[in-house]
């Protein structure tokens, strides 16, 4: 086995180890200091959201009133999926289709869909960046506590200056955990940066 092959094999093993899915898995690239302007996006009813926002405010963050400015929840008013889905009927390139003939309208239709895949993501970035420009938000915190009963929660933090992911955590909920303790653990990790 050549030196290159050994290095390749070792890096593949290291990658598989890093990639193994554990329910208590996290990486944080930098600390998210107290007093930072943050937007917390969390799924759930308004009383539940209030409880979450309070924990972040107690943690010293300036929680901007995004996703909390009205009585509706995200699920009520915005079904992103419905914006995203565009029905497609055929795929020109499907090798099972023996003819694979290209009619001009089919090709145009496929192209529109392909552009839509990329542009949909592009529009989401634009929307997040407007949070920074319009209300001065520096970090977007996405929290999912809806799988509480399934035993896990997760969080992601995106730094809007660079649009980089700086913190990701899949947190396995223990018997002694409650909402407060889970968020406290996450805030502690965010502030320590390790």
């Amino acid at each position, binding site marked *: 086995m050549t030196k290159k092959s050994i290095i390749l*094999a070792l890096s593949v093993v290291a990658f598989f180890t890093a990639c193994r*899915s554990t329910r208590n898995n996290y990486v944080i690239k930098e600390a998210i200091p107290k007093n930072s302007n943050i937007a917390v996006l969390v799924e759930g009813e308004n009383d539940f959201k209030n409880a979450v926002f309070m924990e972040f405010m107690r943690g010293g963050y300036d929680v901007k009133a995004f996703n909390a400015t009205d009585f509706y929840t995200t699920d009520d008013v915005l079904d992103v999926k419905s914006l995203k889905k565009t029905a497609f009927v055929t795929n020109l390139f499907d090798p099972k289709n023996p003819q694979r003939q290209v*009619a001009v309208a089919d*090709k145009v239709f496929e192209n529109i869909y*392909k552009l839509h895949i*990329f542009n949909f993501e592009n529009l989401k970035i634009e929307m997040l960046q407007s949070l920074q420009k319009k209300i001065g938000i520096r970090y977007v915190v996405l929290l999912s506590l809806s799988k509480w009963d399934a035993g896990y929660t997760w969080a992601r933090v995106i730094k809007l200056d*660079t649009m980089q992911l700086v913190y990701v955590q*899949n947190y396995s909920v223990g018997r002694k955990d409650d909402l407060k303790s889970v968020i406290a653990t996450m805030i502690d990790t965010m502030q320590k940066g390790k």
Partner: protein
Amino acid sequence: MKRALGILTLLAVSNALFATGATAIGTFSRRFDSPVSKEIILRFPIFLSKAYTRAKKGRVMYPNEFSKLREEKQIASRVIYTPDEYSQISKLIDGGNLLTGEIFEYAEKEKDDEGNDIEPTAEIPEKKYVLVRLYHYSSTTGKISSFTVYSKPETVVIDLLRTVLPLEKDRYLSRPITSASKLAVIAPLKAVELNDFYISLLSQNFKVHPLSGLDFEASSSADLRLARHLMTQRVSYYSPLLVESVTPPALSAAGDNEANRADYNAFASIVANKDYNFEKQLKTILGQIRSRTGAEYLLLLNPDGKNSFARGFDLSTGGMVWYQDSFPAKSGADADVLASMISEMQRPLVILSEEQLNKIAEEKDRMSAQGASGGLASVAILDFYDRTNTPLYTWLASSLSIAIDDSMKKIFEYDRANEKKSFEAGSRIFRSPADVNEKTLKEFQTATGADYLIFGFYSVSAKTGNIVIESKIYDLVKKKEIGGSTTESPVDVRLFNVVDEISQGIVQDIFSMTQQQTK
């Protein structure tokens, strides 16, 4: 132990991915005969063969060899084939690849009846670049990779090599995307799996600019299915298609046509915008993603068992720089496929070093400086032997040698050995085909001073009534046969096309021989 076996299996699978069959060179179309198109048609196969041998990327099948196989199966000579024709070709090249191309150059100024230059309607720049579109069909994957190379005439052959070399079986990566790169990622994963994937990327020091995961929504593999095939001017990857129409049908003026002009114009405008303008729009969107996220690459990763695929875009140029449809993953699970994708994205390319490429470029320059013949010595062309047993075709004996001489001159500069001496020595030494042996070849070489001898036989096929031409090429210095072909043609205008093909094969064989000598 189990893990060690796993690694070995993985490496074995990985090595299998590198392995490629022979790469056949097919038709390279050109707008007109020019020194550049000649150089590409003749020298690109030779230098590709050289580069592939050095990079251990399999054998290159020269155009004459492929053309012979193709003709035996009565498959037309084309740059792009239909799906059915590609299936037939797959059997011919047996797990290998077919490389074809189109050469586009600025036309020389046309002359009017009095010989004056006609001013071209389009503006021709001072520096005339050449554009070559390559089509690489892989019979194992059934997919076409297409690349466009826009280059100076003096560097185009080497640029074609640079473009084709990184291509592997089912993987194209123009350069490895290594850790510390800034990645924007689209991957259809559920939130927790997506987090695990992002954690693994961050652990490897990639900088992640998430696109999937900016919200709570998860896309599905089916959402991304259509993004597998992308056709752009620069790099494309797709299955062969039967192109039925590329423009909207004309608006019929028939009385029962319910479409009105405004609707038709709206449709035509959508076509123009989303079809002809597709690449520009994609580039604009990718440019916006770059300026908004600061990412360098956009990865579109679709782990979906056997239907998995990965695409990578360089956001600064808007071009596709990575595509791959199969991965040496330890299982079909999404996490394993994704791990394999990231590993493959970083795997070094199987190409030549810059130093090796420079050596090939120097060699090509030396050949170019010596003229199109590349320093080849003189070639003797004798009349062909008539084996038709009928006086009807005696005229072909000298006509064929003259036609081959004329045809070779079109694509290749060489010194024809003294015709009088060659004719005299040929008719004295080779009275019948059986007279060709090491001794007589030496005698002919001494008499004429030629380095190569071309001659052959022709007969009439009892089955078809066509003329069967068998050509032979001998290296008179080494005193051995170095190539030849057997071709069949009706005795009509098609014979001239056949002669052109024979000539191209002869030139290729001679080039091939000189390359072996200088290896």
